[in-house]
């Protein structure tokens, strides 16, 4: 009883002390969103786990930019930092998540 407990404790401790990337369940890989004025991108990890990744600094900290859905260089609407004039309105059907 003690041994598995000690092992579990050790595993939990080493996981807590080794740097790791936070996981999330609420995202579709490749989708993006704005959080706190900063663009985030959803990706898939090696165990098929998902996570949100910040893709740049808070947009407003770099001049007159905002975080919003806009047409990216690949022609797809994505949430990135952009000048306000480039922002597009997305229908609620896709929630602006692409």
């Amino acid at each position, binding site marked *: 009883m003690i041994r598995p407990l000690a092992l579990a404790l050790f595993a939990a401790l080493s996981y807590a002390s*080794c*740097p*790791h*990337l936070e996981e999330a369940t609420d995202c579709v*890989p*490749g989708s*993006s969103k704005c959080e706190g004025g*900063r*663009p985030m*991108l959803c*990706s*898939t*990890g*090696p165990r098929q786990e998902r*996570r949100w*990744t*910040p*893709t*740049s*600094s*808070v*947009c407003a900290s*770099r*001049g007159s*930019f905002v975080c919003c859905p*806009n047409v*990216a*260089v*690949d022609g*797809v609407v*994505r949430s*990135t*930092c*952009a*000048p306000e004039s*480039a922002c597009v309105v997305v229908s609620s059907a896709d929630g602006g998540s692409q």
Partner: protein
Amino acid sequence: MITEQQFQAFQRQLLGRVGGRLINRESSYEMGLIARLFDFLHELGMPLPTREEFLNGFATTLGPMVYMPSSWDPETKLLTLVHEAEHVRQWATGEFEDEEGIAGHFDMAFLYLTNGQARVRLEERAARAAGEFQHAMVSSGRPRLPSIEEATRFLEASYALGPDDLQFAKDLATHWLTEVGYGLYDTTAGIEAIAIAKQQGISL
């Protein structure tokens, strides 16, 4: 056209600001040691670069030290240095200037070595630094930014990444190429390099 003298003045300024140091790769003891190991493994049939390729074909940053072949032409060295200077910065202060993202020092080194997604994030951000510099400095007649393919191709060969990681790299590149296209410069190395080049009258 960039001269060796211009490159030297530029590298001293840029690495001074991010707290790094340029080391001549061909004559460095550490790189020689790794090259010999690679040569040995190459002989055993492992798909690794030979000693010659390892010493003259790559730039590597370890902590604050940038190991770059001195034989490269000054313009290649300059663009590569901006990429490597961002790695120096990542090691010193982390992925971003605020608390968000991957922290510096141990976290950065550990995650870079053990996690493909972290490697993609740190590499694409370094690629962004060079992309920002190119976007700001390139004069007319040449492309101001790489394509998504060009911005991710370097990760396909020797970074041990899976298909999900490479897709993530493409998505990240699409994000930063879009932002840099709007003139949004976000990386420390990119912003510093642009300021130094303007001050030194360097143009690509």
